């Protein structure tokens, strides 16, 4: 089966410092890759290269489809509510929540769309916060809004930069389980985090950056 993402001979240089080189990796169905390393080792740079936001200094990245990317700044507009943010992100990435038959009237489609977004927000524990502007949510709640995208139809490959930041213990455990379940259902995840993952799917691997190329 074709891997979702294949990278070969990757190298990245920032401000004259070589972060990594000769890096090759391949991610297919069921794989989870945790990128680890000390601060400044180039974890975020690697993820940005893999997501297609940044060109590598050398090497190639080949993706079968654009991945779902959640970065440090997760794309949540403060002046919009949680629901408006998610509706926009879904439309932008051409993923339709709540699939309805094409013959259904437009109003029915919109209702299903809304229901799917509300369902995703309930999954991340934000029931009752659907129409609150995001600037009045806490940091952890904002992170939850961004992560609600993982409960909506999304590409198979997820690239997540520090997804556990600002989450409480329960939410961390829930997200770990969700990521593992995604991998078991044929998805793939690349993530950076400093904590030890409690749930690891069979396809788990770890990539340590920093030190090796110094």
């Amino acid at each position, binding site marked *: 089966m074709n891997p979702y993402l294949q990278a070969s001979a990757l190298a990245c240089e920032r401000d004259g410092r070589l972060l990594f080189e000769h890096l090759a990796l391949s991610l297919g169905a069921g794989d989870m890759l945790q990128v680890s390393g000390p601060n400044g080792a180039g974890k975020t740079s690697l993820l*940005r290269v893999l*997501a*297609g*936001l*940044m*060109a590598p200094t050398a090497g190639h990245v080949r993706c079968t489809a*654009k*991945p779902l*990317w959640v*970065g*440090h*700044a*997760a*794309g*949540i*507009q*403060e*002046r*919009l509510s949680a629901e*408006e943010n998610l*509706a*926009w*992100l879904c*439309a*932008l*990435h*051409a993923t339709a929540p709540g699939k309805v038959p094409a013959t259904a009237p437009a109003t029915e489609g919109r209702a299903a769309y809304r229901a799917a977004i509300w369902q995703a927000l309930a999954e991340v524990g934000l029931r009752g916060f659907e129409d609150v*502007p995001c600037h009045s949510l806490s940091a952890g709640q904002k992170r939850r809004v961004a992560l609600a995208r993982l409960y909506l139809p999304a590409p198979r490959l997820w690239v997540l930069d520090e997804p556990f930041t600002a989450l409480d213990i329960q939410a961390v455990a829930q997200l770990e389980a969700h990521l593992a379940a995604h991998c078991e259902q044929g998805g793939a995840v690349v993530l950076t985090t400093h904590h030890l993952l409690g749930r690891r799917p069979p396809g788990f691997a770890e990539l340590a950056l920093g030190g090796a190329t110094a």
Partner: protein
Amino acid sequence: MSVLAELLKREVRLLCRRPGELLNPLVFFAIVVALFPLALGAQPQLLQAVAPGLVWVAALLAVLLSLEGLFRSDFEDGSLEQMVLSPQPLALLMLAKVLVHWLFSGLALVLLAPLLGVMLGLPLVCLPVLLASLLLGTPVLSLLGAIGAALTVGLKRGGLLLALLVLPLYIPVLILGSGALQAALQGLPSGGYLLWLASLAALALALAPLAIAAGLRISVAE
């Protein structure tokens, strides 16, 4: 296309939730124009003679002022990264975004201009030309300015650099726009100037979105 409808909804909501961003350039435009009669004294002939250039320079600066924050909040909260990664063509998304911005800020400026023109003593027959020239010229100003805004969005204090980058590009629009008004003031036909402005507008509509998208990709990759 549903993504354009959603983009439209999003931009309109964002602008309506921070009306100051729209209002400030308008007030700036009105105040700058109002300063000149105070500085030059009550000389109707002089004011009328300088009115075309004055209205155009003030409009140009007001558009520039309104564009500084065009991509700023999207850049800071990561929305731009999401747009760059979207399967939708970035240039088209940006064209829609700039046009929504123009509809709210540029169009208001165009509608305010005749009032300020009358204040400077422009004869009423010149007002249609004033309106037409601004209507064709301000979208060009917005689109060109958005290229500069896209390139400077990653910089901490990009405001002055934006002005330095973009103001030279505004010169043709300024010459044609104030030229049209000058011609109308002297009773000469101004159609030629307006057609030139229209062709600049068509050119900017077609090409500027590509440059904006390229500029944003560079800024996001930094």
